[in-house]
């Protein structure tokens, strides 16, 4: 490994590997480091990814990681009113993250990135206030790795974010606490839709998901708000599996083949993700959809931008925040309003009681859910007025303030 790396990417997940590939394509030298020695393990995710993100990032989804193709979703309201959305053609995949992450990482190294696994981040180094490297513990030794730019792709608990001051600790309300089982022997009613279940009883401030993984297997999980103290995420999921109609119909014979835990930022992107000599990508940057919790697509697209911009800045010899800001500007141009709108929508949904959500489920189509979660306008105002329900109409007025109906 070279002593003076141009770019050090901390974290070998999809965000890190995508960033590395972007930087390599633009001519920079890259070293990816990771605390772990097994990339992709443990899996901490619903494993769903749309086709759009990888397409924009020009990174193909590794064939060998694909477990199922999906065409859309089925959302169950608290009172179990199902709303379906399905496109004619597959619009996304459920992948095996162990394979997905590993393959992206392998590709990044094949494209020229150096790798250093089992390297635990200890500190950043600075010269005249500009980040210029990291200190890690590797093979029992403390090592300093120099860099022109350090990229934090180190997830929700990003140490690069903390050490650069780009983010302090999250408030519990700003994260979702997740628990999931990978299950075999499932009897899914639909094998090409992702199922979501909402409701205060089922999963307060979050949702339960059932994602098909082919051959009777599924990723079944829950994310609940970090402020929920009544029960743990695991207890909510276990209760669901035992008592809920939707689970009884599909998962009564299912067996657990893997247990997973995770945490998600659901408060939108950090105010800024650049400082002199460093930037953040992926979950570390808060690039997670505040409602769906999806993050892989954003990680790939924004990572790709970050890599290219970093390489360009290094070529020009200008790695200050002012110049790295180009990355912020570019990703915000694509996703800025989507994050802003869906954050407001999230707040609104959290305020809405279960009975009103049921009424909403009665008038929305799958199409409108897609538009809403993308922060776009929907035509449901007249339908809501026609119900004459004052809670639903009040909700519409709130949505109108957000210019979403």
């Amino acid at each position, binding site marked *: 490994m070279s002593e003076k790396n141009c770019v050090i990417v901390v974290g070998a997940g999809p965000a890190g590997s995508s960033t590395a590939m972007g930087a390599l394509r633009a001519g920079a030298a890259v070293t990816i480091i990771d*605390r*772990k*020695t097994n990339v992709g393990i*443990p899996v*901490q995710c619903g494993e769903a990814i749309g086709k759009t993100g990888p397409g924009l990032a020009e990174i193909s989804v590794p064939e060998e990681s694909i477990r199922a193709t999906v065409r859309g979703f089925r959302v169950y309201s608290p009172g179990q009113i199902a709303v379906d959305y399905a496109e004619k053609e597959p619009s996304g995949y459920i992948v095996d993250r162990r394979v997905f992450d590993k393959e992206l990482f392998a590709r990044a190294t094949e494209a020229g990135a150096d790798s250093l696994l*089992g390297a*635990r981040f200890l500190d950043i180094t600075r010269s005249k206030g500009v980040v210029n490297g990291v200190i890690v513990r590797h093979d029992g030794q403390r090592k300093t790795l120099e860099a022109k730019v350090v990229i934090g792709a180190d*997830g*929700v*608990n990003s140490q690069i974010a*903390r050490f650069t001051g780009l983010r*302090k*600790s*999250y*408030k*519990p309300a700003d*994260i979702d*606490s*997740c*628990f999931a089982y990978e299950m075999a022997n499932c009897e899914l009613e639909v094998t090409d839709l992702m199922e979501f279940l909402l409701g205060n009883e089922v999963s307060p401030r979050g949702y339960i998901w059932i994602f098909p993984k082919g051959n009777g297997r599924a990723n079944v999980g829950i994310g*609940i708000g*970090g*402020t*929920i*103290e009544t029960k*743990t*995420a*695991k*207890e909510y999921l276990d209760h669901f599996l035992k008592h809920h109609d939707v689970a009884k119909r599909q998962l009564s014979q299912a067996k657990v083949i893997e*247990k*997973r*835990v*995770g*945490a998600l*930022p659901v408060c939108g992107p950090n105010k800024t993700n650049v400082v002199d000599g460093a930037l953040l990508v992926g979950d570390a940057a808060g690039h997670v959809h505040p409602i769906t919790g999806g993050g892989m697509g954003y990680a790939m697209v924004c990572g790709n931008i970050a890599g290219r911009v970093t390489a360009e800045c290094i070529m020009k010899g200008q790695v200050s925040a002012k110049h790295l800001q180009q990355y912020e500007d570019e990703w915000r141009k694509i996703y800025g309003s989507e994050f802003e709108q869906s954050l407001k929508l999230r707040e609104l949904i959290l305020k809405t009681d279960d009975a009103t959500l049921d009424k909403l489920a009665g008038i929305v189509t799958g199409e409108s859910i897609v538009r809403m979660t993308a922060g776009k306008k929907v035509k449901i105002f007249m339908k809501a007025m026609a119900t004459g329900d004052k809670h639903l109409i009040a909700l519409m007025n709130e949505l109108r303030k957000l210019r979403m109906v």
Partner: protein
Amino acid sequence: MPPTTSTKKSTKKLADIDGELCGICQACATVCPVNAIEVTESYLIVIPEKCTGCGVCVKVCPVGAITLIER
């Protein structure tokens, strides 16, 4: 054991992570206001010198692996 050198507000509580339940999701670490939970290759550790015993980590653990114990 309370460290004698601690400058933190003295509390009698300390976060304790049950290694058998913990799945290393780091939810606890993300909300820790003093960055007292460190991640090694295969487990999480609470740095007693940093932990103030505030208990915010207990709330967010998806499996209930964290308890506050007496120092």
